[in-house]
């Protein structure tokens, strides 16, 4: 049977970009579903999420269990990453497939904060933005979702169409930081 070839969001970009102190790599988040509970359904949504072991995250936070994550992604919205939405959610929350909408980059290394300081206005130091933290912000001019994986890695989610610009901006900042004596 005929089939449609897949093109990953970051196909064709020269990744990873490696500089002294930082690495930018493509990250495949897997399935992504936006989950926005309808009015008064918070408790029911929590119950429906229970089989996944995930709780609906507070603003700026995320929850994770068994390879699946739930990232806060905006007003009363979270992205379910790496798992299919449990069937019980239907009717309790608006579920919207976002698997193809984002290009996800992982920036890691000891200078990742110095690199991000050239791209993002937020305070991303560990006390303010520790593992599990998320934020909607702007990466230079690109709308972005940031999610900290661990002390040395931040995921950068940008619109799929802006992937080329985002990679260019991050790589430029990385090279500028690496060039410092």
């Amino acid at each position, binding site marked *: *049977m*005929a*089939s*449609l*070839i*897949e*093109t*990953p*969001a970051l196909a*064709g970009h020269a990744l990873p970009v490696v500089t002294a102190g930082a690495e930018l790599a493509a990250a495949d988040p897997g399935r992504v579903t*936006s989950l*926005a509970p*309808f*009015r008064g359904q918070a408790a029911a949504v929590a119950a429906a999420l229970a089989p996944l072991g995930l709780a609906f995250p507070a603003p700026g936070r995320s929850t994770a269990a068994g390879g699946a994550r739930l990232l806060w992604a905006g*007003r*009363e*919205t979270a992205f379910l990453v790496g798992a299919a939405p449990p069937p019980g959610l239907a009717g309790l*929350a*608006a*579920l*919207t*497939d*976002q*698997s*193809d*909408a*984002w290009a996800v980059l992982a920036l890691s290394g000891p200078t990742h904060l110095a690199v991000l*300081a*050239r791209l*993002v*206005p*937020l*305070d991303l*130091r560990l006390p*303010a933005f520790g593992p599990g933290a998320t934020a909607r912000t702007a990466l*230079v*001019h*690109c709308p972005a979702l940031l999610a900290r994986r661990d002390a040395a890695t931040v995921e950068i989610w940008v*619109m*799929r*169409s*802006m*992937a*080329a*610009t*985002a990679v260019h*901006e991050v790589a*430029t*900042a990385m*090279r*500028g930081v*690496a*060039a*410092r004596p």
Partner: protein
Amino acid sequence: MRLETAGLIDRTRPVAFTFDGARVPGWAGDTVASALLGAGRRLVGRSFKYHRPRGILTAGPEEPNALVEIREGAQRTPNVRATVQEIHDRLEVRSQNAWPGLGLDLLAVNDLFARFFGAGFYYKTFMWPRSWWERVYEPAIRRAAGIGRLSRRHDEAHYEKAWAHCDLLVIGAGPTGLMAALAAARAGADVILAEQDFRLGGRLLADRQEIAGGPAMAWVEATAGELAAHPNVRVMPRTTVFGAYDDGVWGAVERVGLHLAAPPAALARECVWRIAARRAILAAGALERPIAFPGNDRPGVMLASAVRAYANRWSVAAGRAVSVFTTCDSGRAAADDLVAAGVNVVRVIDARADASALSAAPLLREAVVTGTRGRHGLTAIRLREAGGGERWVESDCLAVAGGWTPTVGLSCHRNNRPLWREDLAAFVPAPDAVPGMTAAGAVTGLAGTAACLAAGLAAAATALEGLGRAAPALVPPAAEDAPRRARPLWAVEAPGRAFLDFANDVTTKDVRLAAAEGYASVEHMKRYTTQGMAPDQGRNSNLGALALLAAATGQGIAETGTTTYRPPFAPVAIAALGAGGRGKGFAPERRTTSDAASRERGAPMLEAGLWYRPAWFPRSGEIHWRESCDREVATVRTAVGVCDVSTLGKIDIQGPDAGSLLDLVYTGTFSTLPVGRTRYGLMLREDGFVMDDGTSARLAPDHFVMTTTTAAAGPVMRHLEFVTQALRPDLDVRLISVTEEWAQFALAGPRARLLLGGVLDTPPDLPFMGCAATTVMGIAGRLFRISFSGEEGYEIAVPARHGAALFRDLVARAETLGGGPYGMEALNVLRIEKGFITHAEIHGRVTVGDLGLQGMCKRGDFIGRAAAARPGLAGPGREELVGLRAADPATAIAAGAHLFNPGERVHRETDQGYVTSSCFSPTVGGWIGLGFLRDGRARIGSEVRLVDHLRQIDARCTVTRPAFFDETGGRMRG
């Protein structure tokens, strides 16, 4: 010339640069200024207005005279302060504002006529004829004046912008700042210590002092070492904090690569920092001020603090026979220090009668300097001694100490004025001038190092308390103290020109003239004389000018007040402020999934918002874009065309109240739309004008997907957010953009259904405006039967990862069917032929009635309904959408042209309307257009005259209904 002392230069690393082509030797640690003085060079520049020879006045960033140009290949950077620029082996420095050269500057003829060039000269002289000012006088004056020259090329160097966040920002790394940073560092706070110099220490770099029983610099090095070892401290040398902004944000500019001979290609020249700090300590110190006396601008006349800095820090004697002219104790200390450093101080001239008699050099008390001599540099000074007698004495350097002016600028950026302290004869920062900021040290008028160390510690304790941290047990080390005694001497009364503002050539006479001519307010005096308006922003002259103005007007200095301090505190290159914004850095590029395929086919790309879309797809043999466009239009009308429409905004709307939301934002009714159907809608702004148009499809009872135009995708999303958050928070509805999720392609033409059948697993039999879920080669997708071309049309959507493959497949299949891809130009022609509107028509000033779409307004309420009913927005006299057809098929109609009644005068008062869209229609065989014509619907069939002054078009057009082809829509309904 160089002294034998060690100084703070690295004698193991010789460095040489060029000044006006001549090689100048120096050492690592030198600035351009210290190296030039070390090489015995005094003449460095020419002044702004009179082209007078000028030398180096200061040893810091406040330098008004020694502004030079740096050349780097084709780049040139003007107005670089020689006292700031570090030397390196590839540095190419040029003097500026002199022609043909520094030694012989023909424009110095201005100086001979200086008598006529006083304050207000230009205003008084070049008044007539009025029209000459812009065309003749101003350009000529600007050529003769001005300071540096730009290369007039793009600055293609790399600059950075960055953010920093900290608990405490310490501004200035002198004794106060170092002590404050040390205390905060030990308390565990996140500290940023910003210092404009490339070395920490402040005055301790320049003055020979002891701290904790040892050389002060040993304490500085030990403190700097400890700070560097703290992981919670970031020391930022070469970083000038230039502005205090809202909410604890500070602007700073860092010189990153400017001091390197071979900076890596990726290294920024400069970085503009925005530092968000919870607390700040202003330890910006104080600047020594000059004294105004005749001839005080001659090369060789310097500030005593600078002469001291050159001697101690750079081991340079600024002269062979140095005189010191002082009105304060620090000048006397400088004289003693210079003697100790091995500088030949021939005399100390102290204006005070009661000054100490203890001096390491010959002392004259109650004496002043009344004049200077020397063509390109000082050779002699004229003294007036206690008895009034005057005499000339030889001296090649005069170190002037007029007291200290606290560097209050940053404390005034939040619209505060500094406070006058009569006891200090200085302005100091007002308390709480900047929320969260404490001023400490010399900037508050303190003089001795011991007092500054204690103040730094106290300021840190205040800041730490605000941060909820305990101050560490820390005792300031022992250091010398020097209580400040102020005895200001603003100007010496003697014949001759005494300069206040060296950078702008403003003299004491100019300030007095301003007062005499009625410019007695300090703001008026500043603008009339230009005092304080040069790159040094009057740092060396503001207080002196104020004092003279106060004396001339009979007011006190406090009553006279200061001018307004505004950011930036120090010059910042526009290139640095605009870092990253040049060329394509200005905005992100958005690329569709078909982008590569379109470019491979040689399609020129058009920008649509941030998106790039193919304009047309050229084929071999086509030499003009119209050939490609006409072919693509014909392809759609006769076979099938494929077009990427993914850039249109797509908004997923779910919830029990989704239909109610659409009813509120659209003029039409959507809550009654059956599942599986799509409806065209118009959206109004609250003011009643049309905001956007598009279709919404009902996928399920509680689930719609709304389509917006490409340009309005963001604004419509924002509008919906506003409506759901602010106007109708009671609606249970959720929104999210799915523009990026779906790749969507339009198939249009008589063979569209045939093409569709080849890619869908089970092609549904959709009615016009139907929609359905579908599968495309096993992939779940969506199918809409909608048309923007007037042909039978479908839009097929698949998840974006399959977009690239589906586009190539659709195009290949379309070509087999005699069709192919079509671009924006053809899309535009197709929709104009049908009279479909875009934002060319709904440009923000048209109503539903203007478009002839009043039938789309429901009876019930919707956003914009009330405002659209305002008088004047409906009824006779409105400009209404019509079609236009050129009477002569060969005459182009141009969008932007205006319409007039035939036979009437072409004038704005007879204007009947304008053209919004136009094209050559291969289907109709002539030029057609859309436009707005006054009462246009009543004038169908009549003639109008079309005039385009820009393109020199004057044509007759027939007014038609806004549809030129298949007006009943039979083709697209199928």
